[in-house]
């Protein structure tokens, strides 16, 4: 075992590669996501960011290499508990057919448990949705409302790690700000480790403690967020220049 035990790492990648349909999506990723911090994951489209997120909660498995969650190999976790431990919220905010309430209760229904009216309302309040929305059909929600509901639903499992895939990219500025506040609060209040894929470099700067910059399936640079102001490589400097102009 040549991996270094790192007490500060919530997730640790060791020579991780991932192929799909014989295309290399991720190649030789080595790095870590620090515990209790917000790490912004940035990079151009097709860099493999979403795939990396799906590796973190076992929705996909690496073709080679090892992933450690809390210093334990990811393969030693039972998949459902791993996925509850590391919750994911995706850009498309998929809903099941039915009411807001049904969607919110889904993680518990899957465990044959139920969500009380009060718990449901608390969750809606937490993400900034009206509490009288519970009986509304999800088809009547706006994109922003769906995204907030999707985050609330992921929180039902009380994840220690929260994986966020461009959750604000289709939202209006007010909703973006609300969600940023929410994620910040969750991070501070529950010391939840957060990995946040974003296209918005300013959002990364503002929200992130750490940053990973990925390109073409490789991790180019990672470290403290100030890295975005002083990139070490030309590639990253170029990418950041393109984003800010």
């Amino acid at each position, binding site marked *: 075992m040549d991996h270094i035990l790192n007490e500060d790492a919530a997730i640790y990648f060791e020579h991780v590669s991932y192929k*799909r*349909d014989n295309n290399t999506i991720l190649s030789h990723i080595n790095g870590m996501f620090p515990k209790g911090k917000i790490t912004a994951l940035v990079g151009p489209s097709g860099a493999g960011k979403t795939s990396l997120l799906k590796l973190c*909660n*076992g*929705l*996909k*498995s690496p073709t080679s290499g090892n992933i450690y969650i809390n210093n334990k190999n990811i*393969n030693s976790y039972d*998949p*459902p*508990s791993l*996925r*509850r431990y590391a*919750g*994911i919220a*995706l850009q*498309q905010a*998929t809903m*099941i057919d039915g009411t807001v309430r049904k969607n919110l209760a*889904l*993680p518990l229904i*899957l*465990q044959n448990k139920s969500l009380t009216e009060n718990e449901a309302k608390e969750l809606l309040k937490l993400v900034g949705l009206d509490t009288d929305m519970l009986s509304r059909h999800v088809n009547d929600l706006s994109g922003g409302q769906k995204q907030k509901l999707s985050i609330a*639903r*992921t929180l039902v*499992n009380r994840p220690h790690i929260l994986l966020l895939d461009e959750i604000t990219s289709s939202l209006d500025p007010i909703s973006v700000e609300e969600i940023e506040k929410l994620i910040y609060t969750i991070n501070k209040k529950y010391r939840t480790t957060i990995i946040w894929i974003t296209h918005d470099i300013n959002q990364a700067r503002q929200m992130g403690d750490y940053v990973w910059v990925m390109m073409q399936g490789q991790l180019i640079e990672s470290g403290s967020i100030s890295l975005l102001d002083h990139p070490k490589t030309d590639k990253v400097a170029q990418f950041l220049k393109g984003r800010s102009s």
Partner: protein
Amino acid sequence: MSFTTLSFALVFVLIPLILSKYFKLGLEKDTLIATIRSIIQLFIVGYLLKFVFDSEQYIYIILMVTIMIIAATQNARKKGKMIRGITWKLVLTFTLIELITQFILIGFQITPPTAQYIIPLSGMVIGNSMVLAILFLNRFTSEIKSQQDQTELILSLGGSPKQAVQNQLVQAIRASTIPTIESQKTIGLVQLPGMMSGQIIAGADPLQAVFFQLLVLFLLLTTAVFTSILLGFLSYPTLFNESMQFLDEELKQLSD
């Protein structure tokens, strides 16, 4: 009916041939092939059945049922390419439904254990099971493909593979069995069922024909529901691996 009277019945083939030629429908070739094939196939089956009935040997009954199962599997497996090991899953489904129905029919002395009853009823059960299997596989494949996001959502929230495809499974089972149930609601109102008509023409008491027709209808209800449920539960696990990951990549490759 004799061969001579049957040959007069060929007039019913001649009429469409002449019409097709006159109106340039281009159906002559297919009509001829269909006629010749049906004559040959049915006579082979007829003589085969006569031989099996006369010999009263169970080995021949088993052989005929086996052939039916092989033919039905051959037909249905094309629709289930996305499911690994679909061939043996179909064989298992058809064999089980055949065993269960015959066990009940013979066990409760509903029908006697002779070739005359076992073979035609097996044909109906396996034939309908095949149609159901095709309907189910078609629907299940399209449900799975169109709802991949939902499958992944449920897995990501800590759900099991079964929970992740539960909705798609139920939709496909319902959609494939509803036609069987619906068709029974209007049976006899518009058209007499083929088997009943045949019996009545052959001189059976209409009430006896009704008894048998009802028996077949009830049999087909079990066949329909059992086929889709069993095939569904045999199929869905192949869409996931042991780490409870949805094999969308494989799905894409197989359906291309």
